[in-house]
């Protein structure tokens, strides 16, 4: 059962990766054995969220025998619809996994504990933990990895990734738990960033504030060029106009925020605060942005959960256990030689934090179903 779950997640991961790099994929077939039917509930959730993308249709094919003509017929059916058929396969063991994580204290340590919990739940082989501190010795660890026949590393945090980058290039490295990746450590192949996927952010925005037509974002291209590229596509598919402003320093950013608020239309505009240490300054910019957004009735949403407590309308933040599971699935994909899972990927395992006070001020009333989907509600009282 555990193996099956692991395989299914691997498939989903491959599917997501295929989608992100091949916009022409229109149909996704999920083929599984009838005997595994009860396990379907494990992957319907993620697949349904994929299904929400316009132009994507998911077909479920339950087979009692893999040689069943149904597979052939289905393939024909897809071909008749002029679909491009790509097969994403998963399975087989990638052997034991090493997890590198930063040796830092609480409370951030809990973040990694939860991610590792997800990794352990999803891995079908032994998971060895390495807390990476100042005394990390690449040679010693390399020989230990060889001894244990470990060929796959899940590297968490900047320190975890930095340490993994120093190892033998043949070792497969999947990284996670990082917002911004230092250029020197980008050798790694797959990085599941902590930056929430703009597609999910925009979908949430549209569902909570349906009248929104334009989203403003101020970003430092050195940090977020990759994310803004994704955001443009995501905005287009949601029917939103994304107005992007590049700023290389705080002074520039402040001037841009100033002009955004001067010209914004409260009925149709919203402001997105990405994870950007240049343009989203916590102590000076944020209080004033929140004050202006309140005064002018412009929704502000964020990629940092703490901003919701301070008055942003909502934020998406990491579901650590799910992220851990996803890291394993990516590792399987990468180890199986699938090139589609390479690169920096945005965070799709997210939870929602929501500020009811701000919503009420903006005249927004989430539906009961939406309310139930919020994992954190502010203000606390």
């Amino acid at each position: 059962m555990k193996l099956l779950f692991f395989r299914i997640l691997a498939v989903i991961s491959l599917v997501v990766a295929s989608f992100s790099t091949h916009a022409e994929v229109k149909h996704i077939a999920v083929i599984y054995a009838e005997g595994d039917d009860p396990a379907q509930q494990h992957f319907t959730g993620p697949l349904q969220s994929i299904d929400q993308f316009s132009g994507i249709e998911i077909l479920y094919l339950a087979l009692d025998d893999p040689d069943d003509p149904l597979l052939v017929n289905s393939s024909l059916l897809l071909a008749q619809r002029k679909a491009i058929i790509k097969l994403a396969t998963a399975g087989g063991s990638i052997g034991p996994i090493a997890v590198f994580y930063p040796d830092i204290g609480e409370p951030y340590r809990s973040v990694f504990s939860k991610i590792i919990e997800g990794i352990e739940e999803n891995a079908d082989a032994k998971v060895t933990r390495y807390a990476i501190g100042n005394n990390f010795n690449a040679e010693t660890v390399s020989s230990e990895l060889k001894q244990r026949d470990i060929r796959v590393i899940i590297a968490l945090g900047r320190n975890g990734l930095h340490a993994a980058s120093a190892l033998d290039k043949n070792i497969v490295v999947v990284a996670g738990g990082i917002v911004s990746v230092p250029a020197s450590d980008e050798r790694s192949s797959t990085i599941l960033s902590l930056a929430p996927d703009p597609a999910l952010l925009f979908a949430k925005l549209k569902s909570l504030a349906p009248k929104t037509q334009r989203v403003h974002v101020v970003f430092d291209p050195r940090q977020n060029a990759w994310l803004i590229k994704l955001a443009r596509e995501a905005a287009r598919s949601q029917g939103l106009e994304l107005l992007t402003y590049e700023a290389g320093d705080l002074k520039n950013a402040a001037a841009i925020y100033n002009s955004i608020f001067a010209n914004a239309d409260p009925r149709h505009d919203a402001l997105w605060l990405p994870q950007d240490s240049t343009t989203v300054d916590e102590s000076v910019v944020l209080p004033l942005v929140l004050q202006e957004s309140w005064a002018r009735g412009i929704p502000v949403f964020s990629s940092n959960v703490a901003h919701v407590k301070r008055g942003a309308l909502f934020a998406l933040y990491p579901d650590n256990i799910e992220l851990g599971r996803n890291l394993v699935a990516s590792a399987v994909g990468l180890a199986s030689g699938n090139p589609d899972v390479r690169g920096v990927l945005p965070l799709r395992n997210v939870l929602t934090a929501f500020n009811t006070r701000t919503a009420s001020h903006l005249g927004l009333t989430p539906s009961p179903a939406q309310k139930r989907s919020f994992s954190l509600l502010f203000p606390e009282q």
Partner: protein
Amino acid sequence: MQRLRPLSALLLVTASGLVAAQPLTEEEDLAQAYGDKNFVSIATGTRQLLSKAPSSATVITAETIANMGARTVSQALEAVPGLHVSRNNLQNIYTPTYGMRGILTGTSPQVLMMVNGIPRTSVYLGNPDEQMVELPVDNIARIEVIRGPGSAIYGADAFAGTINIITKTADDIDGTSIAGGGGSFDSWDTWFQHGGRHGDLDVAAYFKVGSTDGQRRIIRHDAIGRSGPVNVGYDSVDGQLDIGYGNFRWRTSYTLRRDVGTGVGIFGALDPTGKIRSERLSSDLSWSDANFARDFSLTLQAAFMHLANEVTTPLVVIPGGVDPTFPDGMIGDPSKWERQARFSATGVYSGFATHRIRLGLGHDNLEIYKTRENKNFTLLPPPSQLPMYRASGANLFLSPHERRVNYFYLQDEWNFAPDWTLTGGIRRDLYSDFGGTTNPRLALVWEARHDLTVKLMYGSAFRAPSFVELYATGNPLIMGNPNLRPEKIDTLEAAVTWQVNRDLQTSLSLFQHKITDIISQIGDTYRNGGKQKGHGGELEVNWAATDNLRLTGHYAYQKNTDETTDHDAGYAPHHQLYARADWRFGSGWMLSGQVNRVADRKRAWGDTRPALPDYTSTDLTLRSIRPRQGWDFSLSVYNLFNADIREPSRADSGIIYDLPLPGRSFWLQARYNL
């Protein structure tokens, strides 16, 4: 253009030019997704709940409790603004009493204590626990304390305030731990805790056993002029089981206190031999469907409780050779058995755009179904010594009685203009013994700015007379009065919460209340008649000074006057100042220090003793904060400077120098997370 000023000002501030971002550290990087150190535990924790109605509320989380080093609920509650924990001075048995906003009486029935929203109240005295139960905190997720009236939602006794203890669920625990601890007064305890998902069931389990000899501070002068140590030791067993299955949740809780000492003795005469046993079993089943119908959520609940308070070694009320009427002394073992059944339905309708309607109804059956008393005396005229006998009829302290309550309530949260909400609520309670009572509540909330909220609140509340006040027998000098009405309170409050900046939050609450129909002993029985008025306020500050240092503090002031005598109502502190610093250091260590100043406790009318001395208590706790697995340690020093802490006795108790509380004491605990 006016509104553009702040951001324009920012341009000036930053005009000196800024260099490109420096490389981020690990924690700075994570902070961009999870928030800073003060926030990350929220982002990795579980869902929060919205409040049921606007109020002046304080939430004490499990983390705060751990930082304080609190081992019991009463220790944790001392950190709540406007709340002071004192000790039972009606029976002098050291049970904690909770004074809120200056309303502090012998057994504090004016504060409603609930566990998961279900009252812990025993109808005997109207307080949560007659005996020294001192609930442990290990299995508590948070404690929500509301100052001011809550009867419009919670019914009886949500009078001066409401304390709701929320126990941990499988999500909160998420793993298995075993722990053991020991400390001063030959105290030890050990416990086991587990939370996890087993098939379709969410299971949380907690079991604890412990024992303490209790502090042994000296009573210099008891009711009969003797001196000796207080007797507050006990053995304890606590167990809780919480099982969730789909929409159902079943919770069961067991509390046993055995060989409980009698404090200074129920008559104020030290009684080192008397022992009491208190056993409580409660269980509730609830079914909740957030989507019962379109825009309508529904919760149904049935709750049961059985409480046995039994004297296991007879109490020596007065020893032999003191009173010539009772040459062998007065010895007795008054015991009572109580059971309660509560059924309720609560619905919330959110289908209207600007209204959110909460409605509920319920039925409670509260009963003392058995009482027993063997004694060697009678107080019926003529009072005399007798051989030990089983009392009955008028000679028994209380005969069995039952109370049935039906109630319904309605509350509307009306968002009548942007940033303005008016919450109106009303609850009608029908009691089988004293009749009906209706209690309204009105709250106007204005979200004045993005960082400022203003509230204006009015509410009325009632306290139901206890069975002792209604039905006591056995002593012609203090008889129950079945014609009593509930005590009433009307409260007006104003509150402002201001998020000064990211790191500093402050709030101010002001209140004024008027109490009528106060039940007190007048002549040979209990009567309504007392009046009291009070006013005051609480100022709270919460400051994240640095990433690793958080400072919290409050100042509370109250002045309550007994209007029948125009004298201070007594007992409760007029001024209370509290500060706590939580400092995170090294890799996974937390050092917390708290200072609590309790000042200006006047004597009640007719008490000519000098005012109770002020005191300042200081506690220190060092603990490790480890990941999920492995060892965790905690070391606490309470009352570090050995201050002489005393809580007030009653003037007529004969205990002249009040009730002393422990001097410096220690506690060391180790916990292993499997």
